[in-house]
Structures are given as structure tokens and as C-alpha cells.
């Protein structure tokens, strides 16, 4: 028989408290693993990264937001081809820092490529792109013929 400190488990309430505790810990575990690496882990084999993207849609525009921290303007390339929006670029290491000066390197570096299919025809030359605080915002106007048209009904 092993020596385990005796814990009074008098009421059924105790086991519920224990369950709640386990639930809390499990939730934390899920929060951590789900939120940290959306695109697989950054190990040698699965070393893939793509920016997290939000897509919004209105009558006139498509709005896209992408998290691209630490990139300068010329490191990101945005193109529209065959109704697909392509986000392409390379996250480069800061050149002035020598490898031996690193204590810890968790940030991803390397090239990325992401294609986002656009649901409607868009005005490719009227795209408004801005970059602020590591977030790229694209406002893409829809083509006139792709916009929804209201049909008036004549009531006779």
C-alpha cells in the first residue's frame, strides 16, 4: 500500500470542485495551443507560416486585414490575378544582428504565400492598401456589374 496523504472527501461538492479545476486547466491548455500556432507548429518539418487574415464584405467593397508584423513596405507584395488576391513576401532577419548574439529566437523568418479567393469581380486598379502597426488593410472596390441591384416592383 502506498502512502498517500489522507484527504477528507466528505461531500459530493468536493468532487465537483475538483472537476471544475480540471476543466479550467484543460481550457487553459486548449487556449494556449489553439491560439499560439494556427498553422501548425514551427518545427523543422512543419515550418510553415501564413499571415492571419480577416475578410469583410459590403455592398461596394471587400475589406481584408492581415497581421504582418515587422515587415517593411517592399517586403510585402499584393497582387490580384484571376479573381484571387495573393499575399506574398519574405520575413527577413535583422541583418545587423549576428547569429551568436541571439539568446532566444522564436519569431518566424522566411517566405510566405497566401491566396484568398475573391467572391466577385473587383476593380483591380482601385485597391486601397495601407499598413499600420503591423496590420495590412486592403479595401477592394467591387465592379459595378457585380454589385447587387435592387429591382423595383411595380404594384398595379
Amino acid at each position, binding site marked *: 500500500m502506498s502512502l498517500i496523504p489522507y484527504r477528507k472527501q466528505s461531500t459530493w461538492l468536493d468532487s465537483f470542485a475538483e472537476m471544475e479545476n480540471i476543466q479550467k486547466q484543460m481550457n487553459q491548455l486548449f487556449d494556449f495551443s489553439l491560439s499560439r500556432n494556427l498553422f501548425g507548429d514551427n518545427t523543422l518539418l512543419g515550418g510553415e507560416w501564413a499571415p*492571419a487574415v480577416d475578410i*469583410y464584405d*459590403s455592398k461596394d467593397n471587400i475589406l481584408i486585414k492581415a*497581421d504582418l508584423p515587422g515587415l517593411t513596405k517592399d517586403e510585402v507584395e499584393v497582387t490580384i490575378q484571376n479573381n484571387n488576391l495573393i499575399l506574398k513576401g519574405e520575413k527577413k532577419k535583422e541583418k545587423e544582428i549576428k547569429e551568436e548574439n*541571439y539568446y532566444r*529566437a*522564436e*519569431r518566424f523568418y522566411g517566405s510566405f504565400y497566401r491566396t484568398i479567393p475573391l467572391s466577385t469581380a473587383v476593380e483591380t486598379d482601385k485597391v486601397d492598401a495601407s499598413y499600420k*502597426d*503591423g496590420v495590412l488593410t486592403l479595401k477592394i472596390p467591387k465592379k459595378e456589374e457585380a454589385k447587387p441591384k435592387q429591382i423595383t416592383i411595380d404594384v398595379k
Partner: protein
Amino acid sequence: MLDNLIKNKKDEIVTVPPSINIYSENENIVLAVEIPGVDKDTLDVHIDGDNLHIGARKKRDEIGKEYCERHKERKFVEYKREFELNPEIDRETIKANYEHGILKVTLQKKEAALPKKIAIKYD
């Protein structure tokens, strides 16, 4: 547990440890923290005893009412990370700068901890 996973997480703020690079640069220790699109008012860098705290919260996107959400990957999160400081690091001089979604925290070593160059006399 499953209930909580499925439940709408929009109102709940998830805390995430941000990716970080630490390197030395001109006798300083620099921490480069990847936190894109945060609300600058929530940026919090402070030293508490031997610990360096870094915290920030994402900015809520101001999307016009005419827009409808189609796809969502960027989460509204709180970034939080803590580091224990080496006794050699000066607690008083700490600099922070946020640019292009990267927070750079510069820490200095204490005067006594800096390497001293010794002049060698040649005959």
C-alpha cells in the same frame, strides 16, 4: 469543457504569449516582441522586483456597419509575457519602442557588469 470550447469566444479575452527574440546589441539586451495591431494605450512594460512584464491588448477593429464578416482568423487577444531579469541588468534604464507591430524593449547592463577594456603596454 466542450461547452466552453464551442461557446462564442468573442467576449472572452484569451491571453497569448507573443513570439519573442532576445539578442544583445552594443552591450544592451534587446527584446523584440511580435504584437501586431495592438492598442497603444494598453501597452504595458514594467519591472516588478526581478521580473520584467510585457503586456498589450489587440485593438478592436473599427469596421463600418455596412460590412459583414466573412472570415475571421485574427483574434482579439491579450498578449502577456514575463521574464526574470539577471542581476546584472540595470532596473532603472529601460526603453521601449513600438513600430510596425514589433515592440522593442532595450535593457542596459549595470555599469559594473560591462566589460572593461584593459590597455596593454607594449615596449
